[in-house]
């Protein structure tokens, strides 16, 4: 409003009128802040922030948690003990502690509460909720990496008052556990990397009975103020009175949460000394490198919030919660990355502050450094935190994904282009779009159906008016190996004559309300119930619903989209379920909210596995897209960033958001290309396709009120430019697929931020608008601003970079400017890599299966290059039986030889069959960028091929060398070497 202050009142009111009129014309595009809580409106967040403020405001603060040294046991890699919490009333609360050390080098600190653990508490309102702190998050999130370390051992030379455990690879890690007050320091090579409870913010709200105090004696009118004053007075008296106002119930937006277990939050401060950058705690619309959250210029004043929500028209650069939650954070400094994983499924807030520690005047040569302090606050559940000590980014991400699982190796179609819209309105409409893509020679693999295909929003049905022949439609798609993805949401319409809801009710498989009867809420279909996928019976039932004979109209090329699984409940608090709802085994919704979305996807994934027979030749990998997610969701499919807008800032924000997903172990991520709400200009649409061609999950999508925007409708030159971007994606699919394979075995991101690729380059730690594709040195920086015709690209290392399209040569390190008119994507190739491509344009990725390969050898300063290729049938599980090929291509300048070696870990029963199938698939072309001048005039290379274990006789093929011209690299082409992609071979250059 400050803008208006200088204006006269009349103008102000006129402008306001204009604003009012404008808002009538176009729907106001703005997140409804009032629908979502701030920390101050969230009782436990507010209490813990106040606790922190109190603790940090006094130097005399003594954290009331101490580890009883006598209770400490260390046995086979696990330390146990009991922490005593001294309450404000001087009671002692016993908190069992476990510190586990895993073989992977990961440590885990778990704290429970004895009384609750034993069920020795009373619940209010005769609640049937479970009494324990939620201890099943690991059943959903953790799938491996928990082998207990055999090498971890207590160290004799622990200082007094501490216990020291030495563990990790080569015993380079240490955990120093301080007894009073309780705290842990994790060290690597003797240097402290992570500190727990160093600032004394550890807080586990213990169970207590509600004492109904007599009515307050205060006079009406001034009670608020007085209470505040009292609190202040008490606070300054060190013994701060606790704010009980939100202990027993809490209201927001007309909904009251009954809290039968009283206050039960857990909080801890985690410090990263010397680390200036932290990444992670996805999903948020903000920069990759997380901002401070306690106010100040350019900083947030709210903590990062993790409470999966259907945020309508979310805003940019905000710590506000979004659809998914990954409570995993990495801290990074020059050549060192460490991380923590806060395994808690309840609503969580994370405060971040950074402190600059100035140079110690007594120590010479050490400059100031920045320390990042974080404060993790969850509403309920265990305190359960995993510690990763790196030192490389991949070590941390690898350890985290070893625990929570690697991204599923998707079917190849799933990483090709998806065409979606809310909605393709009839089966004929779908067929028509399908034909149009072919007519305009634009490749695509998948067409999607949003909610309108159903009959009255009843999932597992088809609207008989608009989709009379779904099978015919699916068959047409299948003719060109295309797929259909149909939406299935967790809310089941409450309506008569709908067998699904009748079964759901009669089998009692839906989520219950606090009174333990079926919970009814409002979503797309109107009155609805929600499937409880925490229930094994519920999941089993869900599994059956997707059988071809049950979900009629589907066939093998139909896959599923799970939306609204936060869950989104239109009339619920913060557009989701009441926290006191009850799930399977009487866990409260508050306990497991953030995992809820994942359970649905898990059930859907299992359902898609179950609809085909395992022995079926075409037992294909499931594909499920989800909006809501948690740590571990990466095992089950793809995510997208939800309902974005057709606006430049949203295009820009999509890149840091996807990079953040990548370093959070969930790299199969995308944003709606074109923007969901609103109509993009043709320029924006074109630029968005150019960026989208680099999204791991690449889908165009649009809101029902927008104009159609399929690529062929854009008109020239836009359609042509968009088609080029799509064909670029398709040509590079071998590289993408290999990157996905890498992610599926190591958790590595698919598009990688600068810090990940260059962990020693301090200048690049904050960069989040450019990225590398896989391990190929392919560096892209899509244009995300209107009218921009050039792009500054940051090159981190002393290396040659070539423009992908014209071989223009740049030399790092430093920032270079790349021309980027509308038809050009700023896209460079770093020297030293070999990139596999398939250049023949086809209608869908499935039709490229037997196409030959082109290898692009990019020679940099060293003159050497290497790259890998992973390939399988792109759809089945045969790769688990060895049905794949995995090659390493390398060029050595010393011998001028390019060779292909086998990288396959082992052979299996399907290996032979697959290699036989690929026998005719050859390398049709080798392009060498930055080709040595010595090749000039040498018209031939000599190649030899392995056949049946023996080397064939060498033969000669043509080499075509082109000199460099005006800034562009020299290049050469080996004409049709004809070697098999799946076999060993060697090409000797002159």
């Amino acid at each position, binding site marked *: 409003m400050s803008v208006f202050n200088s204006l006269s009142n009349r103008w102000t009111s006129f402008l306001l009128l204009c604003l009012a009129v404008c*808002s*009538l014309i176009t*729907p*106001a595009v703005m997140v*409804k802040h009032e*629908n979502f809580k701030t920390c101050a409106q969230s009782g436990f967040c507010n209490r813990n922030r106040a606790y922190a403020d109190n603790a940090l405001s006094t130097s005399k603060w003594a954290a009331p948690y101490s580890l009883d040294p006598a209770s400490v046991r260390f046995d086979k890699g696990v330390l146990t003990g009991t922490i005593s919490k001294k309450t404000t009333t001087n009671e002692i609360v016993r908190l069992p502690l476990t510190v586990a050390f895993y073989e992977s080098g990961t440590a885990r600190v778990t704290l429970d509460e004895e009384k609750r653990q034993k069920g020795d508490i009373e619940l209010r309102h005769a609640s049937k909720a479970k009494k324990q702190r939620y201890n099943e998050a690991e059943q959903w999130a953790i799938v491996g990496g928990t082998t207990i370390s055999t090498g971890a051992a207590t160290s004799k030379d622990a200082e007094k008052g501490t216990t020291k455990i030495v563990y990790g690879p080569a015993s380079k890690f240490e955990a120093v556990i301080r007894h009073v007050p309780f705290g842990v320091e994790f060290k690597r090579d003797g240097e402290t990397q992570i500190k727990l409870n160093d600032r004394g913010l550890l807080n586990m709200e213990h169970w207590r009975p509600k004492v109904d105090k007599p009515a307050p004696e205060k006079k009406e009118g001034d009670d608020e103020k007085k209470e505040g004053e009292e609190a202040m007075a008490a606070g300054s008296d060190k013994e701060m009175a606790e704010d009980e106002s939100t202990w027993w119930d809490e209201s927001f937006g007309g909904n009251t949460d009954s809290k039968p277990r009283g206050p039960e939050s857990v909080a801890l401060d985690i410090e990263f000394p010397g680390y200036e950058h932290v990444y992670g705690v996805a999903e948020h619309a903000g920069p990759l490198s997380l901002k401070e959250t306690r106010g100040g210029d350019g900083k947030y004043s709210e903590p990062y919030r993790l409470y999966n929500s*259907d945020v*309508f028209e979310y805003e940019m650069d905000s710590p506000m919660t979004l659809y998914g939650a990954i409570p995993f954070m990495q801290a990074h400094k020059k050549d060192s990355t460490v991380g923590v994983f806060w395994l808690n499924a309840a609503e969580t807030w994370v405060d971040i502050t950074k402190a600059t520690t100035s140079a110690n005047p007594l120590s010479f040569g050490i400059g100031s450094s920045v320390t990042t302090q974080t404060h993790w606050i969850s509403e309920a559940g265990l305190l359960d935190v995993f510690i990763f000590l790196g030192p490389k980014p991949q070590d941390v991400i690898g350890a985290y994904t070893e625990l929570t699982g690697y991204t599923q190796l998707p079917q190849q179609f799933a990483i090709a282009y998806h065409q979606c819209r809310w909605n393709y*309105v*009839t089966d*004929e409409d779908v067929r*028509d779009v399908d*034909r149009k893509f072919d*007519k305009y*020679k634009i490749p695509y693999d998948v067409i999607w159906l949003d909610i309108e295909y159903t009959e009255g929003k009843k999932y597992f049905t088809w609207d008989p*008016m*608009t989709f009379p022949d779904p099978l015919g439609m699916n068959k047409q798609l299948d*003719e*060109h*190996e295309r797929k259909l993805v149909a939406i299935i949401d967790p809310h089941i319409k409450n309506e008569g004559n709908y067998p699904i809801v009748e079964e759901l009710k009669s089998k009692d498989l839906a989520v219950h309300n606090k009174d333990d009867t079926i919970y009814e809420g*409002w*979503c*797309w279909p*109107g009155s609805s119930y929600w499937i409880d996928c925490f229930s094994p019976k519920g999941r089993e039932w869900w599994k059956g619903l997707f059988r071809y004979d049950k979900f009629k109209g589907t066939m093998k090329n139909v896959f599923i989209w799970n939306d609204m699984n936060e869950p989104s409940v*239109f*009339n619920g608090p913060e*557009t989701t379920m009441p926290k006191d709802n009850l799930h399977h085994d009487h866990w409260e919704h508050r306990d497991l909210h953030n995992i809820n979305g994942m359970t649905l996807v898990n059930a859907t994934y299992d359902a898609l596995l179950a609809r085909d027979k395992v022995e079926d030749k075409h037992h294909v990998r499931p594909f499920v897209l989800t909006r809501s997610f948690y740590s571990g969701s990466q095992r089950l499919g793809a995510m997208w960033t939800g309902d974005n807008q057709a606006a430049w800032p949203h295009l820009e924000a999509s890149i840091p958001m996807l990079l953040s997903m990548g370093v959070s172990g969930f790299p199969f991520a995308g944003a709606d290309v074109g923007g969901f709400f609103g109509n993009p200009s043709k320029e924006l649409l074109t630029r968005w396709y150019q960026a989208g061609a680099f999204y791991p999950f690449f889908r165009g999508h649009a809101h029902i*009120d*927008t*104009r*159609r925007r399929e690529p062929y409708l854009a008109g020239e030159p836009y359609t*042509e430019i968009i*088609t*080029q971007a799509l*064909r670029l994606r398709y*040509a590079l699919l071998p590289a993408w697929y290999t990157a996905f394979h890498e992610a599926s075995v190591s958790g590595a991101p698919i598009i990688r931020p600068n810090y990940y690729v260059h962990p020693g380059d301090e200048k690049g730690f904050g960069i989040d608008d450019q990225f590398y594709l896989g391990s190929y040195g392919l560096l892209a920086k899509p244009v995300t601003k209107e009218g921009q015709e050039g792009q500054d690209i940051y090159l981190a290392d002393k290396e040659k970079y070539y423009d992908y*399209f*014209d*071989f223009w040569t740049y030399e790092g390190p430093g920032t270079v400017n790349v021309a980027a008119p509308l038809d050009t994507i700023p896209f460079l190739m770093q020297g030293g890599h070999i990139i596999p491509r398939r*250049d*023949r*344009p*086809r*209608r869908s990725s499935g*039709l*490229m*299966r*037997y*196409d*030959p390969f082109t290898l692009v050898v990019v020679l940099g300063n060293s003159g050497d290059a290497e790259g890998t290729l992973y390939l399988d049938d792109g759809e089945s599980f045969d790769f688990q039986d060895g049905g794949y090929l995995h090659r390493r291509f390398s060029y050595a300048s010393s011998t001028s030889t390019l060779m292909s070696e086998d990288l396959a870990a082992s052979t299996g029963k399907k290996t032979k069959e697959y290699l036989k199938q690929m026998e*005719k698939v050859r390398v*049709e*072309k080798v*392009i060498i*960028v930055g080709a040595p001048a010595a090749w000039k005039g040498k018209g031939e290379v000599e190649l030899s091929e392995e056949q049946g274990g023996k080397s064939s006789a060498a033969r000669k093929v043509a080499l075509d060398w*082109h000199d460099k011209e005006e800034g*562009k690299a020299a*290049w050469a*082409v080996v004409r*049709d070497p004809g070697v098999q992609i799946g076999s060993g071979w060697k090409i000797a250059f002159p």
Partner: protein
Amino acid sequence: MKVAKFYKDAASFTCISNPSLSFPVSRLNDDYCDCPDGSDEPGTSACAHLSPLSPHTPADGAGAAGSNTTLALPGFYCKNKGHIPTYVPFTSVNDGICDYEVCCDGSEEWEGVGGVKCEDRCQSIGKEWRKQDEARQKSLGNAGKKRKELVAEAGRLRKQVEDRIQSLGTEMEGSEIKVKQLEQEVAEVERKEKGKVVRGNVPKKAGKLGVLVGLAKQRTEELRETLERVRGERDSSTSRLQELEGILSTFKEEYNPNFNDEGVKRAVRAWEDYAARDKGPEPEAAHDRDLDAITGSDKDNGLDWEEYEGDDESESETDKVYAFESYLPPSLRGWVDQKLRDLRVTLVDSGILADTTAGSSSGGESKAVTDAKNRLTAAEKEVEKHRKSLNEHQDDLAKDFGPDDVFRALKDQCVSTDAGEYTYEVCFLSKTTQKPKKGGGHTNMGNFVRLERIVVDDELPPNGKGLGSGERIAMKHENGQHCWNGPNRSTMVVLACSESNEVWKIVEEEKCVYRMEVGTPAVCEVLGASAAGVEGKKAGGVRDEL
């Protein structure tokens, strides 16, 4: 295009568009792209990437041609023996899919990738095609006949209009003559009347007038009371309406759009439509002022009933004149009277004296003048009516009814089809309408504005019920009902030849922008030429064999 000759040399091959480039013939169809125009690979997909639709690098095998490359050949040539030869896009060659729709002999999958075998189906496909083609031709023939009928009908209708124009012309001439005569009559009567200082028809009977005044006063009172009551009712309705609109606009602003209640959404939508609609003239303050004035007392309005009631005694000016004349001897009186009349006429004619017989106060006009004028007005109206009618008919004649005026015969005829939950109707040269099957209000999808010609490029389905490709006549409809969150509805109705009028397809291309594909015999002959072209191309256009 004769390209076969380029492939005749047994030893070497020269790229068609780049004659400087020659290769040994072994590089022909060797699945490696050598020519920048792709002409060395007429039988493989090796050069399929040579297209402006593909990303390009200097090492494409196309030399430096880059994205400006155009392929020398239109595609892979399918001989389709037993059917019609055609070209398949290179991108579809050897991709493991039998593209029988274009290549019925399966020859484009000659490599058998992934074990695919595409048998030659040209016999059956060709047979089926010929059968359907026959039906199509027959249907086309029938359609042609129907069109002839329509054209004949249109001709008749046109003739009717032309005839009517002629008769209207004659009638109008007659009326105009009549008007001239009447004008003269009026002038004459007026001239006569102007000479009379005293009009003979000045009401003498004050009694009758008094009654009239009384009645008028009473009636005016009644009218005023009624007007006041109606105004009160209107004001209360207006304020209720404003209150309601206020409630609704608050509702619209404050409802949670995420809470996607269909009922609420519908209500908001309806409100949007309502709010966007032209609300008619704004209540003007002037009107209310008028009303205030009208309902004010008559005296304030300058009408003093008392002046007309009972004030019969006062002498009028004419009375005084008569009184003056009565003092003179009769002979002199006659002379003076005559002189005065002449003088008055002279003065009036020279503009010195106001013409009291002129002016709008018909009450003050002599009956003769009024009658004459009435006759004139009636005659003028008649002329106007004729002129309007004539203009309408002439406009109608000039209007674009398409080639041969054929749509004249279809105007306002309606055809409809069911799609989903709606029935869609198009009335030729009138409008398009969406009608919910479950009942409820009809939605105007646009009013006809004009005929256009647009270029379409669709596959013609086997039954021929589709647009095909080429130039087509389309009816453009605009300014239909306003759309929530969108434009006014509009519809493009694209027409193609068919035996009968029928709606083939309706799609909502964008929000509230519809496209209908409609068959009608009306466009057949026009289509006939180009359709024959299409068929001809299919049948015999592809002659170059490789």
